[in-house]
């Protein structure tokens, strides 16, 4: 009987989703990897790096397409799940950096969407948005790394 009950419980779609959602808050690797990927690919498109056009012409659509698809879905889902841990965290540092990351993610992602769908046509607003995208990413990546230091995929010591 127990087995039947258990089976009923386990097979409930809501419960499955709920469990997956809760677990997702701890499955940071894909999201973190994508965030770093977006940061690195974005930096490589920076004029100062002067990457050859043959590489950057491929990197640009990759950055853009992954940004609006995989990044938005995976990081979006992860962060939505993960933010409960942040708000409930007893550690002030994680709460503070988490909140900062959240705001930076909003700024960086929304500006990215703007640049994707509207672009930087050279006027003042689009220039400002490009700057927001650029500078927010420079803050976002190291803060994420510091925030997730112990569990970070870049923590090679673990």
């Amino acid at each position, binding site marked *: 009987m127990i087995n039947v009950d258990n089976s009923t419980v386990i097979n409930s779609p809501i419960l499955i989703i709920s469990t997956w959602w809760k677990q997702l808050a701890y499955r940071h690797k894909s999201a973190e990897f994508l965030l770093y990927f977006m940061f690195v690919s974005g930096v490589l498109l920076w004029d100062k790096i002067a990457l050859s056009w043959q590489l950057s*012409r491929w990197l640009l659509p990759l950055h*853009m397409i992954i940004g609006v698809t995989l990044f938005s879905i995976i990081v979006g889902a992860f962060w939505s799940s993960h933010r409960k841990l942040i708000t409930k965290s007893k550690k002030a540092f994680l709460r503070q950096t988490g909140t900062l990351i959240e705001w930076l993610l909003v700024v960086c992602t929304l500006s990215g969407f703007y640049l994707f769908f509207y672009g*930087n046509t050279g006027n003042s607003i689009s220039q400002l948005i490009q700057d927001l995208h650029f500078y927010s990413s420079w803050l976002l990546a190291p803060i994420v790394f510091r925030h997730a230091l112990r569990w970070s995929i870049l923590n090679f010591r673990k």
Partner: protein
Amino acid sequence: MLKRLKWPLLLVAISLLQLLSVSASASEKSASLLFNSDKSKIFSANFDAGSISIINRDNGNTISEQTIGRDIRRIAYAEKQQLLLASDFQNNKAILLDAKTLSVKKAINVPARPFGVIFDNKNQQFYLTSFKENKLLTVSLTGEITHTINTEQTPRGLALTDDGRLLVSHSLSGQVSIYDVNAEQPALKSVIQLIDTPSNKTKSVPQGKPRLLDNIAISPDGTKAWLPHVLWSFGHDFQFQSSVFPTVSIIDLTPDNEHEITEQRKQLFKQINIIESGNKVRIVSNPHDVLFSEDGKKVLISLAGSEDLMVFDLSREASANKKAKKRKGKKRHRRKKFQGGAKVTQIYRNVPGDNPKGLLIDGQELFVQNAMSLTLAHFNTGAAGPFAKLKLTQGNFADLVNHDPLPAQVRLGKTLFNQANSEKNKDHPMAGDFWMSCNSCHFDGFNFTNKQLMKDATKDKFSNAITGHVDTYKMIAGDPVAAYIDIIQKTQGGMGADPATSETLTAIDMLNPPVAVAKMMGALNSYVRTQENLPYLSTWLKLDDDKKYAHPKEWLSSAQCKDCHSTIYDQWADSNHGMNMDHPYYRYQENLAAELEGEEFRVLCRGCHTPQMVINNDNSALSEFGDMWEKNAASLNAAYQHGTPVNERGTGCVFCHRITEAEDAGGNTDLTVNIKDRTSYIFEDSNNQFLQWLAKKQINAAPKAHKASYSKPELYQSSLYCATCHNEFTTGPGAKINDNFGEWLASPFNSPDDPSQHKTCIDCHMTQDVTNFDNKVSGQSTDDGPIKSNMRSHHFAGGNYYFTGMRNPEHKKLSIDILKTALTLSVEKQGNTFTANVTNANSGHDMPGGARRQVWLEVIATDASGREVFSSGVMNNGYIPKDARRFIKIGVDKDDKPVGLRFWRYVKLSQDTRIKSGQTRQESYQLPSNIQYPLTVKTRVLYQVFAKGLTEKVRTAFPKEKIPEPEVIELVNVKKEYFE
């Protein structure tokens, strides 16, 4: 005893001192052939083979060969570091190599046409000249450009004295610059202008301007520099025996007193005492490289055209100098003008191989590098002394390349282009009596040097406007084989046309040449049509690519640009540069050209009117696609919506914005367009709409690369950019048909030192306020883009209100507005003489600027009763009366008949009453004497884009086309009343 030994000891001491001074005065020169440090190997720059070879000096075997570029002209050797620096002339690169392995260490982008290169051991740096961009560069041992110095025009050869003076020869201006290179950055000391040899009534006597300077040799004692070159004597029509004279100029290198020793100039053939059989002076052509023998007593010069080696004996020069001094001391009167003493003692005729250029000497061994056959010949110079003769030891001592990258046909053509050796192809030689090759004037082929050629050959255009070949058959393109034979016969005395050989040779019939000649001319045509020359023959348009033609799909449709640049696109689409440059008037003219000169000649017109057709090899008739009434390039938009690539008529966005170079050859579309290297975003060229959308998103997200790829502001700001099409000359004869650029250069608008006055083409024709060129109007060239303080309008407002007016009233207004700003009019009356003063006050070129434009004065005088008492220039049924005062240029053909629409056949001007920029024309009229005052005189300057006669012809040719009457525009008017 001591007394007895005194003199011999002194002589020995002097000899030793001389020897020491020789070794201490070793100098460097830019070269294509060099020894390695122990002289066991020879480095060879293999010209158009694009490689460098290392040859075993003893047996001529190739030790290694490395292809490093496209056209390696010179190499310099840094011995200690075992480095070579090579100049790649066609690729605009300098290449740093390991001298042992020939592996490339660095390819350096340098200003256009790098040529001379030399290593400065003291400063441990290379010097390099940019022939086209007029620069002298210093390059470090790591391949960094450390200094870029502006020089006089066309710097080419280099030589370095041991006391730190760098000599730079300026090929087309006949100058030698001397730089102090004791410091790291060269500092200009002086510029020596070689003299023009004065003109002589006898045209075959050497005379003319020093041109084609290149190699420089400094004497072992460092006191003199020898520069072989030619004299261009172009004050008359081109003709062998009177146009090009080989010459050697001598420079005195006394520090701080460097100057040309004019009396020692070797005016070949005065100083050539070599008499051939028949008591005839031996003729040589195209002197190239020059070397001193190690003892300094001989000078050897290669003759690249006639394919000879020439030996000067300097031991005579010394004695002549002594004699001269002696004479001076004894105050004896001069019997004869001193000509420098040194004279040619030997001409070694028929150097094995083709086109002998580079020379290299060691002791009695002389190596001669053939640039066309890419071989090395080996000679023995003989012992010291005036009677020693140069002897050939091995004709084909070494093959410089394993594989010639040029197709055999092109190689043959290029060899013929450089050949003036009348011994070769003896029955139909390229030149009569070794005089000149094509390259004697068309230096390095067909490129920017053409401008100097035309400049030096400019004569009084009212007696002779031709600067090139006379009466070109079928304008070359219509029948290249016959035309080349004709040119070779008339200009070079080749193909049996030399009167001196009339008994032994028959002049080739250009319309029925022997097969061998036809093959030769076919090969010559192949070379002329290479990418570096005139790939499309009649036009100077070039595609920067390895292939000759592009595919329509390689272009972006201008309609695609509309998505983000709608304002600019709309301006362009209805403009005269838009999609309608194949209008009926144009088609009528092009058809006439093809009918008279051959189908291929259409390309001359299409280079500017439909360049994409030329580049895409589309020879179809201009009957479909678009018409002059079509608004906003509708058919182009429709084609774009359907994803159909088209050959745009007119100059489209990609064409103009991918012009990478204005050649400055004199016009005729002398520009290079590059479509292969534009920064194409992923999916940008796709026909799929979603993928294209994605491409646009990429451009918008990161537009810098896009902007950089389609923008070259420094080129657009230069009037030279527009001159590529708005300057035209006849193909072959080189008579200037249209010279808007030259007119602008001479105008007050060309004032680079006064920015308030200085205006280039786009400052007037691409401004939004055409009534006030100083009013910079802001705007956006990109939708939602930044506000530019001086947005360049793409209306291209000019004198043709007719076509643009059919499509867009705004364009018509702009055109009429700019026309009305050009002239001012004032009138005066003294007695019965009425004078109209017309001033070209606001146009940077002659007025009118275009070929078909009608500008004339209309004067109507009425008396007190309103009766017309005088009139001039009043149109009669749409025609301008013949006695009207017109501002017009009329060219005539060789039979003195006005050329009209056959403008490419004009040989001189019969009339040029156009008003130059800044000038005033006074036109006086005699009024009748018995006039009832007050007298009212109405004076107008009228303008019509096409004469009625032409319109009628075009209507007849294209009866289905709706061709309106071009309206007459009043540019200015003055109405004045006189009471006596």
